[in-house]
Each structure stands twice: as structure tokens, then as C-alpha cells.
């Protein structure tokens, strides 16, 4: 029995009429989508409006998605086209970064000349989340830290991590989960007080 691609399973569910499966995809990619749009727009309401428009376009386009590329690659193109069209429709001059080509799936790094017009509260929360995540990572036992780093930053599969760490796959699975849960436990109070 093979391993399942969560994205493909969710896409197929949407294609079969399961709208709620699309919500799960949105929960997965919402931060990446917002981050991508934030490179072109600064106003939070505009960002969310364009994000919503792009995701609805993606939903409407899903019947034509054949799984020949990764779902995020496909979504990335829709988001970029939507935000560019929005900027043109608003009659604005393109931002400096819009003239540079963005390759598909490129890591969304902050650039110093791109000042996001987020409120201090928004920035504070993001910084606090990032600081907490990296603090917990530093505090983790070495084996857990190595496992989560190889998975999240190096993108290795469980099998590859097991080989690299000379341990069974079940141990890798457990280490990655324990690392995530340790971070999650520390983030909970921070995220719940913001709700």
C-alpha cells in the first residue's frame, strides 16, 4: 500500500464535490499565499481580498488540475497572476520586485526594500511566533532537533532521515512529531490570547 500525497487526495476530494476538503488546503497554504501577495500589496484588507480572489479562482480551476505539477506550483501561478492583474487594474506602478521574475516555489524571503505596511501588532505577533519556534528548537534534545531540521529545512523523507540518523523509520516519525508537539505546546498560549 502506497503513501498518500495529502494535496492530491484533497484535490481529488474537491473534484468529487467535497468543498470542505478545499478548506483544509487553504489552512495549509494560507500563510504562503498571504506572504506572496504581501510582496506586492501592503494594505492588510487588500491582501486578504486578493488572497480570497486567488483562492476562489483556484477552486474554479480545480476541475482542470491534472496533478501534472505540484498543487502549490499550480496555485502559485494563480496567485501571482491574480495579484499582478489587481495591481494593473488599480493603475499602480509595479513595485521594484515585480519587475524581477519569481520562480515557482521560490522561498519567500523578506527583502529590506520591501517594507510591509503591517500594523505593529501584526509584526509583533509574527516576530513572537518565530522567536518562540526557534527558541524551542534550540532547547530540543539533539535527536529531535536534527530530525525536525532534516525534515522541514532539508526536505528529507522519513526514510532518508532514518538512514542519515541510523535509526528506524518509526523513531524518526516519533522524533518529528515530538518536536512539533513541543513547539505547538509553547505556541498555544501565544495564539490563544490572540484569538
Amino acid at each position, binding site marked *: 500500500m*502506497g503513501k498518500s500525497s495529502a494535496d492530491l487526495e484533497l484535490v481529488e476530494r474537491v473534484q468529487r464535490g467535497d468543498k470542505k476538503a478545499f478548506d483544509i488546503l487553504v489552512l495549509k497554504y494560507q500563510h504562503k499565499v498571504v506572504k506572496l501577495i504581501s510582496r506586492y500589496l501592503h494594505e492588510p484588507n487588500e491582501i486578504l481580498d486578493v488572497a480570497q480572489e486567488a483562492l476562489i479562482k483556484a477552486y474554479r480551476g480545480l476541475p482542470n488540475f491534472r496533478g501534472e505539477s505540484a498543487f502549490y506550483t499550480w496555485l502559485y501561478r494563480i496567485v501571482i497572476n491574480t495579484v499582478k492583474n489587481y495591481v494593473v487594474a488599480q493603475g499602480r506602478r509595479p513595485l521594484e520586485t515585480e519587475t524581477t521574475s519569481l520562480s515557482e516555489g521560490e522561498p519567500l524571503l523578506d527583502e529590506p526594500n520591501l517594507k510591509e505596511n503591517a500594523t505593529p501588532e501584526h509584526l509583533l505577533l509574527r516576530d513572537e511566533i518565530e522567536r518562540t519556534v526557534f527558541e524551542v528548537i534550540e532547547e530540543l534534545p539533539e535527536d529531535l532537533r536534527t530530525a525536525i531540521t532534516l525534515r522541514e529545512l532539508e526536505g528529507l523523507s522519513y526514510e532518508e532521515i532514518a538512514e542519515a540518523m541510523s535509526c528506524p523509520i518509526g523513531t524518526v516519525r516519533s522524533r518529528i512529531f515530538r518536536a512539533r508537539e513541543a513547539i505547538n505546546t509553547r505556541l498555544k498560549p501565544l495564539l490563544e490570547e490572540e484569538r
Partner: protein
Amino acid sequence: MTEKYAEKISMLMDDELHNQEAVNLIDGIKHDEWLKQCWERYHLISDALKNNLPSLVKHDLGNRLSAALEAEQTYRLNPHKPHNNVTYLKPVMGLALAASVAVVAFLLAPWESATMAPSLQPQQASQQASIDAPTPQLSGMLASDQLNSPQTVSQPGVQTSPELKVEPVLYDYLVDHNEYTDSAYVQSSMLPYVRIVGYSSNVNENH
């Protein structure tokens, strides 16, 4: 119990969960708020680790989108299955095809032998004749092309019993027939029967 599901969510986001488990868990995420939050937070952690968090972390995009999707049509499509799902079938199909061909060849072999029975007679006749009355000239006839030929029956100097003589009008037919049966056996990876007769060994023994 919740920890068990949280571990499965961790595996699902890494595409390390097996098919049916993934299907069941996705059903759970759709209907269970705690599982949904777990899914969302693990991805938040992942994005934070990869520097993918936007300044706008707190928003209601999910709720806004759910409401907007209410107005959208629901699809009823037969999803496109990825091609790589069936790649493992290729070698199996190849083996099945090879096995079928082998079975057909095996089943046809006796039938073909039966239909060729008459052609055996000249060969057997010549073999019998050579045992009964060996001659020095016979060794010169043992070239393989001649062994396959019905002409050996009536080579000069070879005694044959009268009932085994072949009418000259049948020579062409027998030659054609032998050529056909040889090529047919070679094509089916089997030795032509005339080589199994052991013509030469019998002759040598008699010498």
C-alpha cells in the same frame, strides 16, 4: 488518543501516511475542530521554520473563503488519477503476457506434433533402414541439411523396405513440410524433432 491523531497529522503533512489512513484522517480533520487546529498549527510551525510567515499572521481568510465558497458550484468529477499510480503494473503485465504466450505454446505443442505425425515417417523409415543395412555412403549423408531432408529415404545405396518408400511426387511436399516444421519449432524456441532423432549416433554404433 488525541496524541495518536496528532502524530498521524504530523505524518500526513509530510506525505508519510498510507492511503487509507490518510483518507480516514482527512475525514476527521473536516469534522473535528481540534484536528483542524492541529493541522493548521503544524503548518504554521513549518512556515515559521522556513521563514514563510507573513506579517499578517492573524486573519480570518479561512472563514471568509468558506463563506464565499458557499456560492460556488460543487463539482462532480471523476478525478484524474496520476499516471505513476499504475507504473507498478507494467512489469506484472509483462510477466502475465509472457506467461500467456508460454501457456499457449505449451498447449499447442502436442497438437502441432500430432498434425506432423506423417512427416515423421520418412525420417523413421530412413533411420530404420540405416540400422538394418548400413553402407559406407551413409556417413556422407549426415550433413545436417541432409538429415532434415526426406531425400535420405531414397539415397542410393540405402536399403529401405518397400512399404517405406516414398513416392517421388511427394518429395516436394515433404521438403516444404520439413522446412516449415523446422522454422515453426525454431520460432517457438523448441528444437526441431529431426535433430532429436539421433541419426548419426545410431549409424556410428553400427559401424
